[in-house]
């Protein structure tokens, strides 16, 4: 009993250290926000998709004392403001898309800071299945360990399947446009030749009439 308790308490700080190390490396991307102007990223998202994002200013080693505050804005494809926050160093936002289209997230340095250099912003942007709250699902359905992992895999596979169906429909649309264009190009070539022939025939008749009128023929 005593040795088992000791082994567990030895393992816990190791575990905490691992979690700390791992969580400091995320699946995030760092953007470089310029000193003047905005930096925008966008993504084409379908309807009814959950989006969760986390952004924070990264402390650069080169200037440790200059931490600028940034402002962030997220707009929907039709221009509605979904999130707007000024003068912050970190923040997060979450929304469910109501329309399909290009969602834009823009960052800029606050005007109050007269910035001379840019600043790095870490953005962790998750859509769809990556944004799912597995903790609440686990609590609600009382899953844990291997069962929860397999449930996550099932979710991922379902997302892949939905994505594939979506890609298939887009390919079908594209194919239709392609075939219509193909047909149109054929018709337009024939029309062009037809116009050319008709115009030259008209030309010949007109000139013949003209020469006859002027008694040259």
């Amino acid at each position, binding site marked *: 009993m005593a040795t088992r308790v000791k082994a567990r308490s030895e393992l816990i700080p190791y575990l905490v250290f691992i979690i700390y190390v791992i*969580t400091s*490396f995320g*699946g995030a991307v*760092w953007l470089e926000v310029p000193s003047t102007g905005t930096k925008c990223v966008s993504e084409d998202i379908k309807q009814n998709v959950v989006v969760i994002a986390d952004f924070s200013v990264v402390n650069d080693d080169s200037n440790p004392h200059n931490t600028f505050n940034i402002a962030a804005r997220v707009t929907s494809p039709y221009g509605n403001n979904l999130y707007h926050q000024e003068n912050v160093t970190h923040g997060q936002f979450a929304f469910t898309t109501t329309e399909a289209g290009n969602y834009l997230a823009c960052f800029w340095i606050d005007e109050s800071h007269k910035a001379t250099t840019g600043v790095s912003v870490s953005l962790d942007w998750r859509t769809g299945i*990556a944004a799912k709250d597995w903790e609440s699902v686990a609590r609600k359905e009382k899953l844990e360990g291997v069962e929860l*992992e397999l449930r996550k895999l099932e979710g*991922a596979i379902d997302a892949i399947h939905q994505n594939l169906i979506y*890609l298939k429909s887009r390919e079908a649309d594209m194919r239709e446009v*392609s075939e219509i264009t193909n047909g149109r190009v054929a018709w337009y070539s024939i029309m062009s030749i037809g116009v050319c022939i008709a115009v030259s025939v008209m030309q010949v008749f007109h000139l013949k009439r003209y020469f006859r009128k002027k008694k040259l023929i």
Partner: protein
Amino acid sequence: MVEQIAVVAVIVMVLSEIMGGVVGLRIMLEKQECLSHKADHGATVRASFVVVKVHGWRQSMSSGADLVVTGPSGEQIRDFRDKTSEMFEFVANKEGVYRFCFTNKSPFYETIDFDVHSSYFFHFDQEHAKDEHFKPLLESIAKLRDALYNIQYEQHWLGAQTSRQAIVNEKMGKRAIYKAVFESAALVSASGLQVYLLRRLFNRRLEMSGF
């Protein structure tokens, strides 16, 4: 034993949670834009980019972007010039921040779809085969999860390529119509110009010879 399994399960869950982020973003490239990604030692970093749209009419000429990937200490890892789409991977030998810098040589704005994703279990067999802490079942689940994330990453690239092709197709359709209209108008006006010039020539000749 049970506690050890529970601890290992938590570790694997946390690991697989963090590795989940497949970041697919579109950026507007004017002249040069840089993105960074923090990678762990030994991770396989997979990245891809597709030039989805060129905001100008000269898409066929000089389209594409340059990409230079540099490591944490500034060493160059990859260099691509004038590519419209590329998919590549490399192993991060050092942990740190890897920079992906895009350069646009054409005078128009370009929209680039960029995706980067770190995978830890690609070389799992060599690295952790000796580690007895990880139970085989959880290990297999983690590998499976990694493979699924790879599929999602490739699907994202395919989606970006499809977007690009859809835009090219639409432009082609519009161009076919413009070409047809312009060509007919040009033919008709050339022929009219011909008739006018001939009439003028013969009128002058007739006037000169006194008719």
